[in-house]
């Protein structure tokens, strides 16, 4: 009954979920789609206003390319809409049976956009041969009707819900068209240039050399100028911390330099031949884990730096060290690939035995934390000397190591699929005042969890009731006309007072704002902890850069391998997975209960991940299952 097993169970679930979202149509299915599409379109020729291709495709898919049934369904749907002429028609997302392809809801709402934005398809429709539509429709009707009755499509939704749905899909049309084109363009560009965006978080125990390694990497790549390096060297020598010269490239705060400890995430970027890397250098000290979580929530890949010098690896890996907690954290925040850099190998004179000992110790642990063996890479290096960072020029190392260097490894990391089609979500990790001439005013930065943003977009800041205009977009310190999911951006906004923006605010489209939540149900995985979780445990809830006091208000159930084994348990011990209800704690002396912008993991994965900490320990990671209030 080891904890590791549980860990694996949960991660498997998560993995499976990942896959289902990525599955598109197979080539065979695409072929079938291509053949049945024109037929269906022809059959629907007489329908005015015309029905969008996407809607046709959707219903074709649903009826598994049965043209007749699909057409009947579409007609019926269309008739229903025509019936309520008073309002602009809108298809409810629920009206397509739940079985339908796991496609963004946007497509099913497409018909409603038709009256305003005629599509190319309408012209092509006119030219295609006219088939005997009425007959087909009549003959298919009875069968289809039965099918439909079975699916409860005719059941009237209650009025309030319909209103809500209508509300939800208002204002979509204009945006949609542009977005689709943009997404296509982005995908094409990515293919042509062969460069993909990726965010890398650097984690590891305090003083493992994270900042130094990154400083060295940036210097070797020419991102950090010789002048800066020299001034950092001089500065760090003056305060008697010569070994921090490279770290100073990233540790810019006064406190950080004085104490020789990274306090906050440093964000910068560099490019490898095939990747544009956004680098997030995380603090290793346990007090600054909140900053590290905020960074890890923005990352795709983790670089774990491990101190190879005698005794230091053990100190970081044993209980109380940050190595374990960091690995769990990044994994539960959605990072699937990890590169382990075993640093300071020069201090053990490039001993192969030492390297292998460390690899052997880490391998099973990383597997237990949920990193697949194929997604884990180990490399020996020395950050201060810059060996095996860009190239391996140390003879002792060459004699037994011929694997890739750090930069080669980073160039090959896999880029996860980006949810371009989901509504835009940007959880802010920083709010500041722009100081340059071109980009002044209110500036915010964060990573696009999903969707796409362009200059001129109107964005709603949640929490709050304020709308801002995007004036300039900055990606990797260059201005860009747009940014897509997965990129770290700085947005310069107009029309909003910075008082309405805070670290943790989420920017969304005005039409599809994220919900503010005070109580929700989450599936959690309990980590190593000192005292078990009971109903009423006071915890801190971490969600992106937010950090709020909360309580586990109810223990709903314990599950094992996806099956519920015990309902309303008294305690949750370490290693268990279970369903719990989490409520935010109201401030003392009454007042408004705080709320957090959150979505279920099913709606938006990155917005549905939470971490639960107590007394400076991460005690559980969870995914939001249901929003209660």
């Amino acid at each position, binding site marked *: 009954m080891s904890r590791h097993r549980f860990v694996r169970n949960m991660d498997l679930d998560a993995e499976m979920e990942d896959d289902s979202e990525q599955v598109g149509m197979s080539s065979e299915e695409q072929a079938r789609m291509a053949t049945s599409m024109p037929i269906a379109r022809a059959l629907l020729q007489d329908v005015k206003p015309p029905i969008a291709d996407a809607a046709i495709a959707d219903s074709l898919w649903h009826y598994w390319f049965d043209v007749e049934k699909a057409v009947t369904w579409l007609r019926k749907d269309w008739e229903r809409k025509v019936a309520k002429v008073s309002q602009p028609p809108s298809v409810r997302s629920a009206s397509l049976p739940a079985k339908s392809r796991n496609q963004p809801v946007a497509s099913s709402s497409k018909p409603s956009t038709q009256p305003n934005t005629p599509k190319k398809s309408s012209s092509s429709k006119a030219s295609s041969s006219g088939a005997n539509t009425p007959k087909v429709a009549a003959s298919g009707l009875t069968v289809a009707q039965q099918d439909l009755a079975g699916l409860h499509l005719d059941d009237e939704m209650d009025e309030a819900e319909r209103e809500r749905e209508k509300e939800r899909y208002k204002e979509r049309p204009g945006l949609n068209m542009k977005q689709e084109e943009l997404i296509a363009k982005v995908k094409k560009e990515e293919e042509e240039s062969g460069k993909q965006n990726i965010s890398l978080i650097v984690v590891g125990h305090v003083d493992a050399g994270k900042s130094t390694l990154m400083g060295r990497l940036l210097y070797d790549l020419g991102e950090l100028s010789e002048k800066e390096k020299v001034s950092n060297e001089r500065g760090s020598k003056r305060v008697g911390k010569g070994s921090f010269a490279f770290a100073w490239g990233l540790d810019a705060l006064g406190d950080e330099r004085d104490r020789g400890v990274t306090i906050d995430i440093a964000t910068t970027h560099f490019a490898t031949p095939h990747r544009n890397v956004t680098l997030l250098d995380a603090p290793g000290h346990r007090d600054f884990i909140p900053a590290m979580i905020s960074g890890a929530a923005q990352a795709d890949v983790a670089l774990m730096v491990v101190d190879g010098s005698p005794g230091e690896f053990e100190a970081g890996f044993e209980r109380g060290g940050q190595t374990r907690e960091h690995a769990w954290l990044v994994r539960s925040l959605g990072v699937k690939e990890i590169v382990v850099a075993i640093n300071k190998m020069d201090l053990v004179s490039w001993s192969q035995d030492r390297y292998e000992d460390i690899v052997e110790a880490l391998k099973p642990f990383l597997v237990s934390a949920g990193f697949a063996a194929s997604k884990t890479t180990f490399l020996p290096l020395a950050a201060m000397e810059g060996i095996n960072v860009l190239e391996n020029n140390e003879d002792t190392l060459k004699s037994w190591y011929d694997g890739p260097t750090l930069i080669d490894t980073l160039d090959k990391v896999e880029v996860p699929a980006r949810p371009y089609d989901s509504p835009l979500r940007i959880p802010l990790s920083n709010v500041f005042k722009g100081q340059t001439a071109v980009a002044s005013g209110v500036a915010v930065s964060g990573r696009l969890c999903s969707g796409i943003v362009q200059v001129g977009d109107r964005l709603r800041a949640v929490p709050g009731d304020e709308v801002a205009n995007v004036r300039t977009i900055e990606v990797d310190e260059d201005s860009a006309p747009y940014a897509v999911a997965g990129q770290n951006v700085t947005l310069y906004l107009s029309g909003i007072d910075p008082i309405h923006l805070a670290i943790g605010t989420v920017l969304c489209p005005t039409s599809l704002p994220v919900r503010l939540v005070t109580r929700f149900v989450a599936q959690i995985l309990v980590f190593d902890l*000192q005292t078990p979780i009971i109903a*009423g445990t006071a915890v801190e809830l971490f969600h992106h850069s937010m950090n709020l006091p909360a309580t586990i208000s109810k223990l709903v159930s314990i599950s094992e391998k996806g099956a519920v084994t015990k309902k309303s348990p008294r305690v949750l011990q370490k290693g268990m997975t279970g369903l719990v209800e989490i409520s935010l704690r109201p401030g003392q002396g009454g007042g408004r209960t705080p709320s957090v912008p959150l979505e279920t993991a099913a709606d938006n994965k990155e917005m549905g991940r939470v971490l639960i900490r107590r007394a400076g320990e991460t005690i559980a990671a969870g995914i939001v299952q249901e929003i209660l209030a």
Partner: protein
Amino acid sequence: MKLVNRHIERDGSGYVTLRPEDDEDMWHVYNLIAPGDEVRALAVRRVQTVSSTGSSDSYRVRVNLSINVTKTTFSPAASTSNGTGQEKDREPTASLQISGRVVNENDYVRLGAFHTLDLEANRDFRLTKQHGWDSVALERIAESTKEGRGAEVGAIVCGEGTASICLLSEHMTVVRQRIESSVPRKRKGGTSGHDKAMESFYKSVYDAVLRLLPYQTLKAIVIASPGFTKDSLYDYIFQQATLQSNKPLLNSRSKWVKVHANTPHVHSLVEALRAPEVAKMLQGAKFAREGLGLEKFHKMLATDELRAWYGPDHVALAVDRGAVGTLLISDDLFRSSDPATRNHYVEMVEAVRARGGEALIFSSMHESGQQLNLLTGIAAILTYPLDVEVVEMEEREEKERLAKEKGGGEDNEGEEQTVKA
């Protein structure tokens, strides 16, 4: 609080006359007065008269009114005190309102008319309990009228850009001010935004400290934060004090303690106050004891789940079996409007004490009390392990047996022990 008069019979009936003096007394009074009790105090009542010609006239009279309490409201910091660090006597800031029907008629007020009494500091009132004085209530009177009040402590819980300035007394934690300022995080190309924002943040904390913390009279002032904020804040405060040659503040330097806390939220006060360097200064203050009690419970839960029970029903079972070593109970439970419920808890406390156990009554105005409230408000550390499920099963069997014996008639005791399966 001063006990002016006390007239309590053996059977618990009778009255006391009390004179509250500060905020904490108001909290005690709030906990003493339950709906149904009779309170007599000085009141200002607006009287309206209508003359024979139809013109109305209204004036205020000061009368002593007795009311039968229907509702009490307490607010810990209704008004902002203007007490600076130098000032010795601070005006109480808490307010307590008691509404109810008048039970003694006089020339101005009819019987049964509603009145809301505003209890004030340094003014006597008389309290008669409807269901008599129980041990918990008497204990509270004894505690609150004791000379030489326990430690008063100031605390600043902070992080980058957030700070809560709190005042702790024996029974209350009052957050006097919450400061939140947005601090830009570091980014490439200059950290001046961060440094500037931190500077102004420290300044507003410093100003709030001068305004809200009576640092001359406090026993200790705790600065708690994760990371280095506490050190920077401490340095800033004394640097400013030196610049402004604020002698009293500089003299209080020995009372300032820096403690590590894991979060910048108020709830990490519990762990901050457990730190040895603070505990030493507080020497068994009530809130320190409460914090330790709660910690002990959590530790027990981790090491031996069968010896840490919580929830009213479960704890009641444990008390019946004489298994409770330490009872942790929140004063929230005693404030129940139903006298039977209150009595039930009073009996539990008495039973535990009679068996030589310890009963800690947590103040729900402290963070530890609030955390206990979240755990249903009652918890117990048992002297020997007991399995909840076994006990529940035994209880059920016992009940069935009793039910059989009595031919279906359930006695009261059985009723009380009913446990949700």
